[in-house]
């Protein structure tokens, strides 16, 4: 049995291996191997044995390449510009105009795509082109895209929630249901912040021009149907009880395939590009997940969960105090670690604490994903900030930093809200299950 210091040293070694640039999966495998060798000796390593096959051969994990493929197909289905234009029709009359379109388009697109880099790059390309000709406060424009693109990992279907569910044995259906309200609420918070900022300082945004004639707007509304339909069918299939998450993902893929075909975007080069991107991303995820399962297995044998529980009992921390500590912990970790690595790498030590304190794993999954969203937009390694700056390809990164601040505040407020009112997260899973 390991003592808490041993566990802390092990965690530090894993972080150290990550920071010297080893692949994240390798750092986790190596930490597991090291722990097993120091405390037990080589035979224990082999006791993982056929688990490797059963982990990778799991039908649940089939969900991952399928959702990734769904996103990649949608990205290339030729709908982004039309969707953006149609959202503009309806959202641009709010104070803040096109800024709301950015948030709406990101929320809608990333809900089905699930990759925040792809969302930031795709919406960023369309949006920044649109803003070229307009007099908006540029940092705020950049901030809306960087922040909006984080919504996808929270709004289901989310690959990150699937990975969390697989590693912690939490129901994917419940996690997806739990992500809906916080996702919508966060979207709303973003829009309220934009509206408030523009009302206080009108020079931040252009005054909206006259809206397009009603029949045109209604005609363009059909461009919003495909992404919405995919979302509704995929989620409906899961909650209607007639499809597992994996089957729902397959339905989404088939719908996206026919959508691309209908738009004339389907051809071999498009399809093959989507395939290669899908295989790369899902294999990258599968390697990390496999390594995490291995590390979790060793961590369990070593008795890390018991050690962590003792620490918590000795410290006498309440669940709320622990969560506040974890907010700080993840804020700091998010400054250095890539988001998925942050989640997967901390689950082995943090999850026992959560379960020991009686915190609901569904609630914690959503908490963790919002902390990941924060990490995506906090300097110095907030990936989305760099992607938006990269798409913009001129000016200073500092502009993006300034523009993101209000949205960082919104996310912190969101964290506060779900701590004070856990029902925001738990209501839908409880109603649906």
């Amino acid at each position, binding site marked *: 049995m390991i003592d808490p210091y041993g566990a802390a040293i092990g965690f530090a070694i894993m972080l150290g291996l990550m920071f010297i640039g*080893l*692949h994240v999966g390798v750092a986790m495998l190596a930490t597991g191997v090291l722990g097993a060798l120091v405390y037990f000796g080589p035979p224990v390593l082999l006791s993982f044995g056929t688990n490797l096959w059963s982990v990778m051969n799991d039908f649940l994990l089939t969900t991952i390449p399928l959702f990734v493929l769904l996103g990649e197909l949608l990205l290339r289905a030729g709908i982004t510009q039309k969707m953006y234009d149609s959202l503009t029709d309806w959202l641009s009359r709010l104070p803040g105009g096109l800024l709301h379109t950015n948030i709406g388009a990101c929320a809608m697109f990333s809900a089905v795509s699930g990759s925040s*880099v792809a969302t930031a790059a795709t919406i960023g390309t369309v949006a920044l082109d649109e803003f070229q000709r307009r007099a908006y406060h540029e940092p705020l424009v950049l901030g809306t895209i960087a922040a909006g693109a984080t919504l996808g990992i929270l709004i289901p279907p989310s690959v990150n929630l699937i990975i969390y569910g697989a590693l912690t044995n939490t129901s994917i259906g419940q996690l997806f249901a739990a992500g809906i309200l916080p996702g919508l609420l966060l979207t709303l918070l973003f829009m309220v912040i934009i509206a408030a900022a523009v009302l206080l300082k009108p020079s931040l945004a252009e005054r909206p021009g006259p809206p397009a004639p009603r029949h045109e707007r209604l005609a363009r509304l059909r461009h919003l149907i495909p992404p919405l339909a995919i979302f509704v069918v995929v989620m409906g299939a899961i909650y209607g009880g007639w499809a597992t998450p994996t089957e729902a993902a397959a339905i989404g893929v088939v719908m996206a395939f026919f959508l691309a075909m209908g738009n004339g975007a389907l051809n071999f080069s498009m399809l093959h590009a989507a395939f290669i991107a899908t295989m790369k991303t899902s294999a990258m995820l599968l390697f990390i997940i496999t390594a995490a399962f291995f590390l979790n297995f060793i961590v369990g044998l070593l008795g890390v969960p018991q050690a962590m529980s003792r620490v918590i009992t000795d410290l006498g921390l309440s669940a709320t105090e622990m969560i506040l500590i974890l907010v700080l912990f993840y804020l700091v970790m998010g400054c250095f670690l890539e988001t998925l690595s942050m989640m997967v790498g901390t689950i082995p030590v943090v999850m026992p604490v959560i379960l020991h304190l009686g915190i609901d794993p569904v609630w914690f999954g959503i908490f963790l994903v919002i902390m990941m969203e924060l990490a995506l937009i906090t300097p110095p390694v907030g990936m989305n900030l760099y992607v938006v700056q990269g798409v913009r390809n001129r000016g200073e990164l500092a502009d993006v930093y300034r523009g993101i601040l209000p949205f960082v505040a919104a996310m912190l407020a969101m964290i506060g809200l779900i701590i004070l009112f856990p029902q925001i997260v738990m209501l839908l899973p409880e109603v649906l299950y």
Partner: protein
Amino acid sequence: MRIIGILGGYACLGLSFLIVVEILARKLFNFSLQGVDEIGGYVVAITGTFGMALAATARAHTRIDVLLLRLPKRIQAGLNLLAYVALGLGAAFMAYMGWRTLSDSLAFGSVSSSPLQVPLWIPQSLWLAGLLLFGLTALWMALRGLAALRNGLDAADRVLAPPSIAEEIEEARK
């Protein structure tokens, strides 16, 4: 390597259509195709390990570069090499466990506990082949990086350094 991605993609697309057909058959005709979920598991396991090799050549396996990029160029090059050698070793470790799984299946003549009764050595040997290819690819990358070092640190960087943001955006737009 591209061909791995393309074939794997067709496998996933085919699987999606198969699943949808299965759902329709089940709902509309009360008739169930057996074993679609089992096939799905094999598709992920096999495309997954071969995909890992593809991801290794594309430098798509996640690395944390926040500290790395702040180190002297020479040390970066050394750590890049180390990372790919370690990736090869990690893959070899997984392949060794995979080999033990496969040899058990062969020794006991294991078949899947489902109506399909698939002899497990068939999917498992393909899966293991993917793991081996993953390990070899990682070491091949390390060798390429080493060879590129003769043309200077920048040349080696282009082979092994984590992709820059510009490259990732380029990738997302493809």
